[in-house]
């Protein structure tokens, strides 16, 4: 493993209509590391992810991917070929079957031979338990199945870094599990990931580090054990308490 981090974010700031959404956010992400970003809604988690692959333009600070700056001058198409992203709403292409969804990027963007990509896609689909869905249309899949396909679609680009933006937020509980198992597998295989999630147990299990964001600032950055069991700030403690329920009786 090289010493240079895959991702460096330095003093990042972003405003929407004069409101600071991100304020002076800095962190680094090493190869094979998984960082989980948590915080109340509207704290800037999603914006932070979207800045990393150029879907949003930051107003200040810098983002370095493998040491190269991502900014106005950077070739964002090239950046996105190295940084995969999966969204809450899956966003599979509804007019293509699963195989078409999976091969579009590698074949068109990366110019790889179709047959080779199809063989790889089949294998990858099998790994997430969806081998028989190769020719299904997205509308014929459950939410959990769609999200697993979306994950495979991102992984077939062989990204340096994978961004997951609340990928289980729209799913029924039993489907959450099947999707998160895929993510845990990826983490075990050494995939570098930046994950925004509200699944705190999952966050604790998968994270190497937790970033607690509030009002656009990083309030805490700590290993998961420390953050979830011994948060330093009151705000983080309050936030974590909202996931607990006291017995009614």
């Amino acid at each position, binding site marked *: 493993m090289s010493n240079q981090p895959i991702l460096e974010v330095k003093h990042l700031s972003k405003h929407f209509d004069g409101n600071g959404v991100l304020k002076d956010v800095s962190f680094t992400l090493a190869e094979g590391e998984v960082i989980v970003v948590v915080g109340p809604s509207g704290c800037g988690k999603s914006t932070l992810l979207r800045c990393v*692959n150029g*879907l949003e333009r930051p107003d200040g600070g810098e983002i370095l991917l493998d040491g190269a700056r991502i900014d106005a001058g950077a070739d*964002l*198409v*090239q950046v*996105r*070929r190295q940084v*995969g*992203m999966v*969204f809450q*709403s899956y*966003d*599979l*292409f*509804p*007019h293509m079957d699963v195989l078409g969804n999976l091969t*579009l*990027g590698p074949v*068109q*963007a*990366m110019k790889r031979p179709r047959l080779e990509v199809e063989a790889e896609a089949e294998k990858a689909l099998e790994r997430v338990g969806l081998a028989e869905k190769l020719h299904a*249309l*997205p*509308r014929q899949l*459950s*939410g959990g199945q*769609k999200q697993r396909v979306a994950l495979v*679609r*991102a992984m077939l*680009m062989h990204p340096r870094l994978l961004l997951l933006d609340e990928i289980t937020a*729209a*799913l029924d509980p039993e489907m959450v599990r099947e999707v998160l198992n895929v993510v845990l597998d990826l983490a075990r295989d050494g995939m570098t990931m930046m994950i925004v999630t509200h699944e705190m147990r999952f966050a604790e299990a998968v994270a190497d580090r937790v970033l607690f964001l509030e009002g656009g600032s990083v309030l805490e950055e700590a290993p998961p054990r420390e953050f979830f069991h011994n948060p330093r700030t009151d705000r983080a403690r309050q936030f974590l308490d909202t996931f607990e329920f006291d017995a009614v009786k």
Partner: protein
Amino acid sequence: MDFDFIQRFAPMYAKAAGLTLRIGLIGIALSLVVGALCCLAKYFRVPVLKQVAAVYIELARNTPLLVQLFFLYFGLPKVGVKLSAETCAITGLTFLGGAYMAEALRSGLEAVDRGQAESGMCIGLTPLQNLRFVILPQALATAIPAIGANAIFLIKETSVFSAVALADLMYVAKDLIGMYYKTDEALLMLTVAYLTLLLPISIVFSVWERRLRYAGFGGAVQGQ
């Protein structure tokens, strides 16, 4: 009802229908090209072109085709540009149709979820690849009903070309009424001729629309 009359002049209607159809189809094809260009200028936010497209669309949609046609046929010769009646007709139809097609295509593009474009970007597609493989197929599926309605509308609008002495269906009917006073027969044949042209087009678009709907995209929102 004078059936001899109908029989005698039916070939004339057939010939005129051919002209109406030819001008209509050329006009529709060119309208789609103009509409697509306007739409893309707006979609990619091309400076200057985007404003030109906006002005053109408003101008074309808010003036009657007859006025546009008179401008081309009687106005342009005054500045030294003389176009044949047929060229005027096709140009006029394209001018009008381009604006309507631009709006139909725009509504299709706007119906494509923002997440689709972002997903395309996230698998490293270039903007053009994204348009071609992800956005346009879905936009066209949504726009097909509007495009079909415009196509039929444009063929019907060709009826104003009789005003610049183009021997289309309307012209033949007016001519026959003027010469023989067989108003009922002439108008009956005119109606039948337009229906013969337009009904098949209408049916083709309906079938196409239904096919796309069954294919599961083009507005059909699916639950999770």
